[in-house]
């Protein structure tokens, strides 16, 4: 029921969306989120490099997913997160939740994203012609956790 993957390889977001609730008669609602490498305002982003902490990443994602299934009635919970160099427009990660009712699916997906942002050991570095810079964590991402 938990499907958690940390990988360098691309994945097919559409296919992953389609199969979240396949063959589950109790599911009435699926919510998915997909994060994409967004270009900067001047359109000069060449690459986003994602570093992670192998081992801890999988554990952290599993804990976040378990927390979500403990709080909401979920039939399925999927997290796929890539690492390594990514080009603008490439898909970075996705989450998907499936539930009998929409409120649970929405809340759980929103929760997964908030925790993934600041509790899973990933770091992003943006590369342009002017050099590379680590993406700073936002205060708003930390305060988002107080919602839960």
């Amino acid at each position: 029921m938990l499907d958690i993957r940390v990988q360098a390889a691309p994945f097919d977001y559409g296919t992953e969306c389609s199969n979240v609730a396949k063959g589950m008669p109790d599911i009435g609602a699926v919510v998915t989120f997909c994060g994409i490498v967004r270009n900067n305002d001047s359109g000069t982003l060449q690459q986003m490099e994602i570093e992670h902490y192998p081992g801890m990443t999988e554990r952290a994602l599993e804990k976040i997913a378990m927390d979500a299934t403990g709080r909401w009635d979920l039939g399925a919970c999927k997290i796929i997160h890539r690492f390594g160099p990514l080009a603008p427009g490439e898909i970075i990660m996705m989450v998907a939740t499936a539930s009998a009712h929409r409120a649970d699916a929405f809340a759980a997906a929103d929760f997964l994203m908030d925790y993934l942002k600041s509790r899973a050991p990933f770091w992003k570095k943006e590369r342009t012609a002017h050099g590379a810079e680590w993406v700073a964590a936002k205060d708003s991402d930390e305060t988002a956790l107080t919602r839960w």
Partner: protein
Amino acid sequence: MKRDILYFAWLRERVGLPRETIDTQATTVAELVSELAAREDRYALAFSDPGALRVALDQELSDFTSPLGDAREIAFFPPMTGG
């Protein structure tokens, strides 16, 4: 006691290596940080603002006031930016 120390993201770049094994008498994260910061300038620079850092003991997020206990693997890194 021998412990593996791991560094990630800009902390890794400042320290200049991703991991090392050290022999330390430190009993808390804070003591370990003081010991590391005292080693060389690049460590001092890397750990100059511990409030900007996070720590994990054996792959579990932890606090700078935590005892090191039996932790084999101690990782330092900036705030995470997943998703």
